[in-house]
């Protein structure tokens, strides 16, 4: 059955996955909010192309994303040459590399709910705030953000859950290093490949329960659908 060494390695993978998803979710809320705001309110010609780029990871197989990230972040790639120049070193096989990849990969799941919430809000609340002499930034934080709260909640939950469920990209650029890049999904894959079905079960079963609870929380806590 489960030896203590294997258990420690499984728990290490669980902790790493949790850490990765948390960092990625926080980063995405920071990066994704201005993008979502811009996409929701702009009339620029660029809205189409930018929206399409943000949504690409929904359509692309993770292997495509992983393959190009491996090339781009490698010593001959644009990102790789930048990180070498900046003294950070190369990103593949590092936790930082997984964070960067996951930010791309989970971007649409965070941007789109926030964008939808901003769009649903319309122009009126911001105009009303402006007539009350609130600065645009003040109005954004005291009017727009509270109104879009359900969107933010959905974005955070989906961004977190989608990063936890990431596999293909990590497999392509992770290098399966314990406590650095060996996340739960990769660990499950290894167990299955090595025919350690018992160990695969408790992790895989855990993922099913976790995913169900996350979605249950999303659908019960978040009343966006019913409000309108």
């Amino acid at each position, binding site marked *: 059955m489960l030896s203590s060494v294997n258990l420690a390695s499984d728990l290490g993978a669980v902790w790493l996955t949790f850490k990765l998803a948390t960092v990625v979710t926080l980063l995405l809320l920071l990066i994704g909010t201005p993008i979502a705001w811009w996409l929701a309110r702009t009339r620029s010609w660029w809205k189409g192309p930018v929206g399409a780029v943000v949504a690409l990871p929904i359509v692309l197989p993770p292997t495509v994303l992983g393959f190009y990230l491996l090339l781009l972040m490698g010593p001959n790639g644009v990102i790789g040459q930048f990180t070498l120049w900046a003294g950070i070193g190369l990103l593949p096989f590092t936790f930082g590399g997984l964070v960067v990849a996951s930010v791309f990969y989970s971007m649409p799941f965070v941007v789109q709910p926030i964008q939808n919430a901003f769009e649903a809000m319309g122009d009126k609340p911001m105009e009303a705030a402006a007539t009350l002499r609130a600065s645009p930034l003040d109005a954004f934080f005291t009017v727009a953000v509270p109104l879009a709260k359900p969107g933010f909640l959905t974005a955070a939950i989906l961004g977190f859950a989608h990063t936890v469920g990431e596999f293909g990209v990590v497999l392509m650029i992770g*290098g399966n290093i314990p406590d650095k890049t060996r996340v739960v999904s990769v660990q499950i894959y290894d167990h299955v490949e090595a025919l350690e079905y018992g160990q695969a079960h408790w992790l895989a079963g855990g993922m099913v329960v976790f995913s169900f609870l996350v979605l249950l929380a999303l659908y019960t806590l978040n009343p966006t659908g019913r409000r309108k």
Partner: protein
Amino acid sequence: MSRRIQPLALIALLFTTAAHADEVQIAVAANFTAPAKLIAADFEKATGHKAQLVFGATGKFYAQIKNGAPFEVLLAADDTTPAKLEKEGAAVAGTRFTYATGRLVLWSAKPAVVDDKGEVLKKGGFDHVSIANPKLAPYGAAAVEALTALKLLDAIQPKFVQAENIAQAHQFIATGNALIGFVALSQVMKDGKIGEGSAWIVPANLHQPIKQDAVILDKGKGKPAAEAWLKFLKGDKAKAVIKSFGYEV
């Protein structure tokens, strides 16, 4: 309703053609990809049968075969998986044989990084060593054995980046993300010599021989095309191809 039937009929038609008698479905270990393609082309010319090749990790093939995959022949990366399948009744007894013995190589995509004695392992100057997951891949296990024999495992292990199979281990190095790593000689050999970069062929006495066995699976039992493939694989023409990729036969 009748509209739905047409696409279904088409799909059914597709499956019937795929299961045609003159075709053999072969699961091929990732390290044997290049020679298998060449041998398949020769095989088709010589026999008229068609060889349908699927490439991947041997461990994955095992799980798929046990769960009803349609493969008729397995060219494994090891000798334990075919033996296990035979013992469990999923392969045809008496058809198992070693079609190639693999050689391990320490390789860099850059010239003059790996010297011809493997001293680079002691000297360092690299951040990552790419290796196929030793738990899953025979070439990965052989690399760990060789490093253990050289008393370098403790020094090198923290630098391991593990690939899912030997093809991905090669990819990590080819893209420059790992400066050096352990791959199969067959992956870097072209026309009898190292094609690109620099390499050290790890002496065969540093690890257990990487015997790669082939076997006819349950689904290929009594199929002429499957038997023809195994016979062709034992022939001189196939052997010459296998040798040209650095395997021993």
